C-alpha cells in the first residue's frame, strides 16, 4: 500500500507564517471538495502533488496558529476492506509522526460509521499538530490545527475541528 504523504501537514506546522487579518468566524464551503468548516478568518485555497496523489484544500495561517482542511483522493482505494481502511488510517498517522512525536491517538468517526483518527503530536520546537483524519470511501480528509499546545487543545481549535462536516 502506498503511503500518501501528509507533506502539507508538516509544512503547515513548520512554517506558521505571518499573521493574516483576523475577523469574525466564517463558514467556508466547497462544493468541489464536499466539506464545510468554520474558520476564524478567510482561508486560502491550496493544492500540491505528493507522488501520484493530488492534495487540495484550504489553509489559514495566523500568528503562531494555523488551521487547515486537506483532501486527497487515493487511487484504487474505494470500497476497501475494514483491514485496509484501518491500515490507510495508520499510514496517515505515521506520515505525521515521522517528524512529530505522537502524544495522543484515538479512534473517531464521522456519520458514526466512517472511521477516522484524532492525533496530537509535537516536535522539539514546541509546535503541536492536532489532526482529525477521516477516510471516506477512498477519499482522505485531514482537518488540522498547528501551533502551541494551549492553542491546539483550546476552544478555537475545538470549534474549528468540530465544525467540519461532509456535504453533498
Amino acid at each position: 500500500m502506498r503511503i500518501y504523504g501528509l507533506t502539507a501537514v508538516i509544512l503547515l506546522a513548520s512554517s506558521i507564517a505571518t499573521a493574516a487579518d483576523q475577523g469574525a468566524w466564517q463558514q467556508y464551503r466547497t462544493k468541489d471538495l464536499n466539506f464545510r468548516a468554520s474558520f476564524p478568518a478567510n482561508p486560502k485555497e491550496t493544492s500540491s502533488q505528493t507522488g501520484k496523489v493530488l492534495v487540495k484544500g484550504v489553509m489559514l495561517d495566523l500568528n503562531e496558529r494555523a488551521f487547515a482542511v486537506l483532501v486527497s483522493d487515493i487511487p484504487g482505494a474505494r470500497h476497501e476492506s475494514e483491514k485496509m481502511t484501518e491500515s490507510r488510517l495508520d499510514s496517515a498517522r505515521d506520515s505525521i509522526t515521522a517528524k512529530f512525536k505522537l502524544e495522543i491517538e484515538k479512534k473517531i468517526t464521522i456519520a458514526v460509521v466512517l472511521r477516522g483518527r484524532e492525533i496530537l503530536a509535537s516536535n522539539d520546537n514546541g509546535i503541536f499538530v492536532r489532526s482529525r483524519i477521516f477516510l471516506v470511501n477512498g477519499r482522505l480528509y485531514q482537518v488540522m490545527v498547528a501551533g502551541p499546545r494551549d492553542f491546539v487543545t483550546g476552544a478555537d481549535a475545538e470549534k474549528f475541528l468540530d465544525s467540519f462536516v461532509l456535504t453533498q
Partner: protein
Amino acid sequence: MPKLSLMIVIVTATGIAETGGGDWKEFRSKEHGFCVLYPSQPKLNVTKSGGMEMKVFDVELNKCVFRIAVVDYPGAQFEKEALAEERLELLTKSATAKLKLEKATKITLAGALLGREIWASSDSGDMVHARVFLVNGRVYQVLVSGPRERATSAEAEKFLDSFVLSQ
C-alpha cells in the same frame, strides 16, 4: 442481502397534518451523525421492520413532511461497489413500490459515497422527492413528501440540500 423496506417511510409520509409557519433551524444529531435544516423541531419515531430498526426524524408543515430516516444494515459495512449499487437499486424499488417512479439519478455525498435521488408520485397527486445515501452499511434517507408543488418547492430543495454528515 436483507430486503429493504423503506415503504414504511414513504407510506407514512403521505398522511400529514398542517402545523403552521416554519422557523428554519439547524438540527444536529450527534448520535446519528448528521446535521440538517428543518423548518421546526423534528419528532423522532423508531420503527422496526424485518428485524431492523429505523430512526425517523419528521417535521410536518403545510401538508408536507420533511424527513430523515436512518437504518443500519448489519454486515453491510465495507461492501464492494457492485453490492452497494445493488443495495441502492433495491432501496429505490422498495421505496417506490406503491408509487410511480418518475425519475431516479445517481448522486454522491462527500464526493465518494454512493446515493440516489428519486422523484415518485402517488395516484392521489402527492409526490416524494428523496435522496438516499449509502454510508458504510448505514442508509440515510432524506425526503420531502406532499403535494407536488410543495415537494418540488424551494423549501423542499433547501431541506434536501442542507443535509450533511457530522462528527
